[in-house]
Each structure stands twice: as structure tokens, then as C-alpha cells.
């Protein structure tokens, strides 16, 4: 099953690649439309839009998913129901493809809902309590986005059809479009885990690692960004984009800080995904959708690779995900540490790897156009934080001493997993330059002063030095860390925002319902309907039995007495 789906998706990727090259070279875009039903004034159509953006994204999605399925042949080989897993992943890919190629809201909803549901099924795949809680959090946060898209469908009925791409140029100042844009932005924020809804992404790391590599690095979380890229013409001068800018740069900053306090390998990678998502959303809200798309694609490559390396390391560490147990792995597993290092450095934006092209372009566009000071500071600070946690991770995992056991065998020669990682390694090295040559038919004009140009390098070096210093934990480090306990707990728990989605929502209601249950269900309603009435009836019945258990003569005599009374009344 694994090999079949791997080959199918790989060929699908190749087909998409060739069509993409043809379409972008000739500036072509194809729109298929099939009208299913048309009644009163609405028409339900099934339409497929194939332009270079959707083909490119489909190519990347199918490449990553084919590689992940091949990887999971070896990663999940002890799983009894591997076919079920592969089928779930394939359904996920299908929903994603449906989302990518659809220019109308109904099929976007089908793909969007499918993504949410299947990601829930995949997160709860290991059926334990932690996965259950994580799945609940994921599904319910995504559900808010689904509801928003449903309401958008309802509002778009004002315009006569659900093909939104036709209405952008004409209806921009309409009141209805105002509401639609608000809801679309909320939907994208829930899917891409921006600030009010960001608690599900670190929690969803309870899923198996191939799922994290496919879903939580490149496809599910980028669906929100993709939706906003499609709706970009509508939203570009609106007020909501300013709000989105504010929230997304805060997301970027917050997750960068929180990743420095984490000791779980997959959570660090999740928080770095969250940070890069914030970056994508913020550059999108500044008005550059194609750069956001570019960064989306390159990020997908190296983040998937990073997750897969993390999976190999977790398998090697006897299923331990805590980085304090790891160390010195670069000496023992050269090929895996090669992939890990390259993806980490690509994440930091080291020159001429793939992440450099997109990230550097973003930072230079931010510096070149005039935005306010807070935007500027938070962008560069977050870049520095990225390097900070990356170097901290490398120090913990690769360089310090091995902390797990005395005698251990680190097995690197699993060539199924390694081959799949090599494909992504190749792409993550080269895709930056490839894409910049394809997507940007003319380069962006950037003219910066010297120090501003080198600002990236300054914050990177600062971040790396800090990362090196922080990872030198010694025996006496703990008492110095306790000096800043309040600040640390605020920063490491993602600014206490997960409580918004979990504890804060349920505590009041559970407390109230406990009071109600104790006082009413087990209190007054027992006296007035349950046991109380039973006691009353029982007392009446006992009272009646005193009359029943009597001498027989008394019955007969009472009958005669009754007649005597009646006679007296008759003859008065």
C-alpha cells in the first residue's frame, strides 16, 4: 500500500511540475466549470482553477506527501493498521488538493472541512489521553474556521454565485465584502494558528511524526495562508489587514520566545513552524502575496525535512522526545545530522540555502518600504530568536554530551527513511533558487544602506551567540534561573494563551454546573419529586393500613352506621 501510493503521488508531482512549467512560461490559466444545478438566482457549480500558483502548490504538496508516505513505511512498520494510516493520509492529500484547485467557496469548504476532520483523525491516531485532548483542541479550534467559512458562503449568496474570484475587482467597497473579509480572516487565523487560536499547534504534536511532517509543517497550516493569498485582491487595503499584521507579528515573536524554553523536540519544531507562519501572514498583510507564497513553499520543504529528522532521532532515542537526553549525535549519525543541520540552517536563513532566498527577501522588503518601528523591531527580533532557538537545539542535540544511557546503539542506516529525507534535502537546498527564478519574472528593486543590509547578519550572530551560551547548563544553573521565575513562566507557557482555549472556557461552566447538580439534582428536586414524594406516599400507605388491618365486625358495623346516618338525613 505504501509503495503504491508513493509512486502514484510521485508521478502526480511530476505531472504537476511539467504543467506548472508550461503554464508559467506561457502565462496560461485554465478554468473548468461544471454547472450542477441552477435554481432561482444561485447556481451551484463545480469548478477547477489551474493556474501556476495552484499547480506549484499541488506539486509541492504531492512531493512532500509522497516522501512522507515512503518514510512512514519504515517509521510506522510496527503499526498493525498501517493501511488505515495510509488511507487517512491519502484522504488528507485529496482534501488539500481540492482546497488548492477550487475557485469557489463550496469546494473550498469541502476541502477545508475535510482537512479539519482528517487532521483530527490523524492527531488521535495513538489512542491515549494526551492524543485525545490534543485532538479535541485541534478539532474545535479548526471548527471555528469552518463556521466562519459557512457564514461566508451564506453572505456571498448576495452576489449570485460562489466563485469569489470574479467579484474582487468590482465589489471592493461593498458592505457585504467587508463582512466577508472579516470572516475569511478569522477562518485563516484559526487554520494557521495565529494569536487567539494558537494553542492547538503545539498540542497537536501528539500525532505521529509523519503526520506532523505532512500536516503541521506544510499543508494544513498553510491552508489559511493560501486562502488569504487567493483573497488578497479583496483584502489589500482593508482595516483587517492591519489587525492581521499586528496579530501575526505578535505570533511570530511569542512563539520564537516560547521555543527557547521548550525541551520537547517536536514542540520546538512546532513553535518554529508557528513563528514562520506568523512571518508568512505578516508579509502577506503588508501587501506582498507572492513573497508570502514563496516563503510558504520553501518553508514547507525544510520544515518537513526537519520533522522527519526529528522522527529518526526519536526512534533512536527509544521514543524519548526530550532534548535533555540527547547530545553529541553529530558524531554518530552523520547522514541524519546532515539533513538536520541543513534544514536548521535553512530555517535560520543562512546564505544561499533555500530559506535564505525567501526570508532575506522578506526582511529586505520590510526594511525598504516604510513601515512603523514596531513592525521593524519585531521582524528582526524574531529572526534573531529563530537563530537563537535553532542554535540552542543544535547545541543540545548535536554537540553536547550524550545523556541517555551508558551503552547504546544509534542506528542510522535505515535507508528507507534516509532516502525520503534525501529527496527533501535536495529540494531544500535547491528550491529556493529554483522558485525565485520561476516565480519572479522580474526581481524586486531593493536599495538599502549598508548597515541595514547587514542587520540580518547582526541579529543572526547575536542569536547564535546567545544560543550557544544558553545551552551550557551546569549544575548551578537552576538557582540563577529561579530569579526570573515569574517572567519565565509567562514567556514559556505561550503567554498563558492556551488557557483561553482550554481552562478558561470550561472552568466557569463546570463550576456552575457542580453547584447546580449538588443543590438541585441531589438536593431540592429530591425532596420535591424523588424521595420526598415517595416518603409522603409511604406514610399515607402505612396510615391506610392501620384502617385496613381491623376487626371484621367493625367493617360490618360501619356499613350499618352509614345507613343509619343516611336514614336520619332522609327522614328529617
Amino acid at each position: 500500500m505504501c509503495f503504491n501510493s508513493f509512486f502514484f503521488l510521485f508521478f502526480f508531482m511530476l505531472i504537476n511540475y511539467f504543467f506548472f512549467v508550461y503554464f508559467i512560461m506561457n502565462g496560461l490559466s485554465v478554468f473548468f466549470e461544471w454547472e450542477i444545478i441552477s435554481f432561482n438566482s444561485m447556481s451551484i457549480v463545480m469548478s477547477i482553477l489551474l493556474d501556476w500558483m495552484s499547480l506549484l502548490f499541488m506539486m509541492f504538496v504531492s512531493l512532500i506527501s509522497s516522501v512522507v508516505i515512503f518514510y512512514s513505511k519504515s517509521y510506522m512498520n510496527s503499526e498493525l493498521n498501517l493501511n488505515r494510516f495510509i488511507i487517512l493520509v491519502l484522504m488528507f492529500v485529496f482534501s488539500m488538493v481540492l482546497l488548492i484547485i477550487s475557485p469557489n467557496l463550496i469546494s473550498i469548504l469541502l476541502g477545508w472541512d475535510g482537512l479539519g476532520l482528517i487532521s483530527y483523525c490523524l492527531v488521535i491516531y495513538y489512542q491515549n489521553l494526551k492524543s485525545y485532548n490534543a485532538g479535541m483542541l485541534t478539532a474545535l479550534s479548526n471548527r471555528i474556521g469552518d463556521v466562519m467559512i459557512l457564514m461566508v458562503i451564506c453572505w456571498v449568496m448576495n452576489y449570485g454565485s460562489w466563485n469569489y474570484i470574479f467579484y474582487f475587482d468590482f465589489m471592493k467597497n461593498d458592505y457585504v465584502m467587508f463582512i466577508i473579509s472579516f470572516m475569511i480572516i478569522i477562518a485563516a487565523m484559526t487554520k494557521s494558528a495565529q494569536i487567539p487560536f494558537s494553542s492547538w499547534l503545539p498540542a497537536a504534536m501528539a500525532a505521529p511524526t509523519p503526520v506532523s511532517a505532512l500536516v503541521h509543517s506544510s499543508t494544513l497550516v498553510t491552508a489559511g495562508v493560501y486562502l488569504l493569498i487567493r483573497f488578497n485582491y479583496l483584502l489589500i487595503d482593508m482595516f483587517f489587514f492591519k489587525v492581521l499584521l499586528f496579530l501575526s507579528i505578535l505570533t511570530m515573536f511569542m512563539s520564537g520566545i516560547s521555543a527557547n524554553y521548550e525541551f520537547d523536540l517536536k514542540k520546538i519544531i512546532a513553535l518554529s513552524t508557528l513563528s514562520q507562519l506568523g512571518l508568512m501572514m505578516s508579509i502577506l498583510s503588508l501587501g506582498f502575496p507572492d513573497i508570502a507564497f514563496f516563503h510558504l513553499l520553501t518553508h514547507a520543504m525544510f520544515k518537513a525535512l526537519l520533522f522527519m529528522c526529528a522522527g529518526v532521532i526519536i526512534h533512536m532515542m527509544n521514543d524519548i522526545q526530550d532534548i535533555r537526553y540527547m547530545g553529541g549525535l553529530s558524531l554518530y549519525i552523520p547522514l541524519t545530522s546532515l539533513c538536520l543541520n541543513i534544514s536548521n540552517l535553512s530555517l535560520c536563513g543562512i546564505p544561499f540555502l533555500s530559506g535564505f532566498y525567501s526570508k532575506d527577501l522578506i526582511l529586505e522588503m520590510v526594511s525598504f518600504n516604510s513601515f512603523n518601528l514596531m513592525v521593524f523591531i519585531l521582524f528582526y527580533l524574531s529572526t534573531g530568536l529563530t537563530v537563537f532557538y535553532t542554535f540552542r537545539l543544535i547545541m543540545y542535540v548535536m554537540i553536547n554530551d550524550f545523556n541517555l544511557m551508558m551503552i547504546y546503539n544509534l542506528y542510522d542506516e535505515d535507508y528507507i527513511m534516509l532516502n525520503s529525507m534525501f529527496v527533501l534535502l535536495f529540494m531544500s537546498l535547491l528550491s529556493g533558487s529554483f522558485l525565485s527564478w520561476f516565480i519572479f519574472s522580474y526581481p524586486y528593486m531593493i536599495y538599502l544602506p549598508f548597515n541595514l543590509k547587514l542587520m540580518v547578519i547582526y541579529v543572526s550572530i547575536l542569536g547564535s551567540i546567545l544560543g550557544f551560551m544558553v545551552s551550557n547548563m551546569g549544575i548551578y544553573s537552576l538557582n540563577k534561573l529561579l530569579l526570573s521565575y515569574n517572567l519565565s513562566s509567562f514567556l514559556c507557557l505561550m503567554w498563558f494563551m492556551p488557557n483561553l482555549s482550554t481552562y478558561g472556557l470550561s472552568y466557569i461552566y463546570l463550576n456552575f454546573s457542580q453547584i447546580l447538580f449538588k443543590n438541585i439534582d441531589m438536593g431540592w428536586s429530591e425532596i420535591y419529586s424523588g424521595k420526598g414524594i415517595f416518603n409522603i406516599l409511604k406514610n399515607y400507605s402505612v396510615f391506610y393500613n392501620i384502617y385496613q388491618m381491623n376487626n371484621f365486625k367493625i367493617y360490618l358495623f360501619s356499613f350499618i352506621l352509614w345507613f343509619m346516618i343516611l336514614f336520619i338525613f332522609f327522614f328529617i
Partner: protein
Amino acid sequence: MNNNSNKMFFLFILFFSTLISISSNSWFGCWIGLEINLLSFIPLISNSKNLLSVETSLKYFLTQSLASINFLFMILIKFSLLKNFNMNNIISIMMNSSLLMKMGSAPFHFWFPNIVEGLSWMNNFMLMTWQKISPMILLSYYFNKNFLIFMIITNLIIGSLGGLNQTSLRKLLAFSSINNLGWMIFSIMISENLWLFYFLIYSMMISMMISLFFLMNMYFMNQLFINNMNFFIKLNLLINFLSLGGLPPFMGFMPKWIIINFLLINKFYFLTFIFMMTSLIIIYYYIRIIYSSFMFNYFKMKWVNLLMKNNMSLINLSSFISISSMILSTFIFM
């Protein structure tokens, strides 16, 4: 019942006496029927080998004869002192009281549970169904509406409250019979056809239950749990009890439904309330029995192993009738 030709003879006279009583032209004929009824029922229930049944038959004789005497006397007073036929006066109260005592209806019902406790199941069946026909029909000839409504309410309340504290199955069915008498007296006041309908369904339900108890020789509640009953027997018991209580898909709901319909259309709201609430107590009580016997698994040693393979068809038939007769009856009247 034993295959005893003496009992057959008295049974025949019993049936005949009821027919005399209800089809006579004058009140004397009614009274004669009642007397022959009493005289022929006594030999059916007395068994000189058993002291308890002798005492029971003596008690029955005393109460019923007292009631018959009063009935005769009231007939004579009515003939001699009243020249008209308006129903709701004091003579009708007196006549109704004596008939109510004959039936075993409240407030003259105190003999009824005592006697029922001393009789066997088949005699109980006779007492609860056949013996009620002639007093009821005589009641319908000359009744006092206000007095009867008051008696109905008393019937209902005593039937429900008295049965709460019982463990003997015979007394339980006795109090349920008193409760159903309340419904039946009210249905007499509505129309005689309706009374006939109610009475037939009631006697069918009682016959199913009593035949079940008779075949398993069960007189007390704890015998329901100790015995190792077949699943279908328990199911039959469940269905019959619920039907007797008047729960909807079963047969016993139909007559109660028609009566409630009449009550609500004619705005007897208070009486409806009493009917409903006492039915609720009765059903609570039945469900308490069948819940314990049907659902719980008692850990006592079960010494009695009831096989009952020969009588299964009767039980299946009765369950089928109880469940489906409400729906099938709509097919009849289509």
C-alpha cells in the same frame, strides 16, 4: 380448578344468576339474581379441609348478605315512598352504597383484600371479574352522580395508596382491582358501551396475569425472584403488568384513553388530575416489581426450576395480544 362436577354445577348456576340479575324487568328480579349469585359462589370457595378458606367463605357470606339485605330494603322503600324516577336523590345513595359494598368498592371495600388473601387464584379470578358484572349493571340503572363521583375519587386513592405497602400478589391485584373499579364506575356514567369495553379488556388482562401466576403457583412477591423463570415468562409478566397499569403501546391503555378523552372534552379537569396521579402511583408500584424480577440477577440458590415447555403457546399468544391489540384494533374500524 379441580375437575369436580359439583363445582361445575355451581359455576353454571353462578353464570345463570348474573344473567337473571341483569336481564330482569323489576328490581326484585335483580335482587333475586344477587342472592343466587351469593349462594352459588359460597360452595365454590369453601373447602372444608382448609380452615383459612372456611373463614374466608364465612366473611364473604356475611358481607354480601348484609349488602343484599340493605339492597332489598332500599328497593322496597323506593317503591313505597317515591312516586317519580329522578335519579340523584338520597334513596339512590343508599341503593348505590349497598351495590358498592357488593362489588368491593371503596369506602366499603375493607373485606375485599382480606378475602382475596384467602382464596386460590382461580377463585380470585371469579371474584375479581365475574362477580362485578351484575352490581355494575344494576348501578347503571339508578345512580346518584355526585355520590358516585366522590366514591370514584375514594376508589382511586385507596386503590393506589393501599397497594404501595403490599408484598402479597393477591392483595396487590385486589387493590389494583379497586383502582380499576373507579375507572369502571366512571365509564358507567359515560356510556354502557364504554363500560362493557373497559370491562372486557380489564378481565382479559386480569385473566392473563392470573393464569400466569396460577401456572407458576406464585402467591407472594419474593417468589418472583427466587424462581428460575424463563426469559419469555418474565417478558410476559412485564408486558402484562405494564398493560394493566395503562402504559401506551399495550392493550390496557385503550380504554383509559377513551375515558380521558371524554373527561377532557367535558372539562372534568380536577377528576382528570386525580385519575392521572393515581395511575402514576400504580404504575410506579408495578414497575418496582417487574424491574426487580426482570433485570436483576438474584444470587440466591434457585431451588425451583420452572420448565413450562407445554404452556409456551398460551404465554406467547397473550403477550402478542397485549402488545399489538391497540394497533390491530385500528384496522378493524377502518
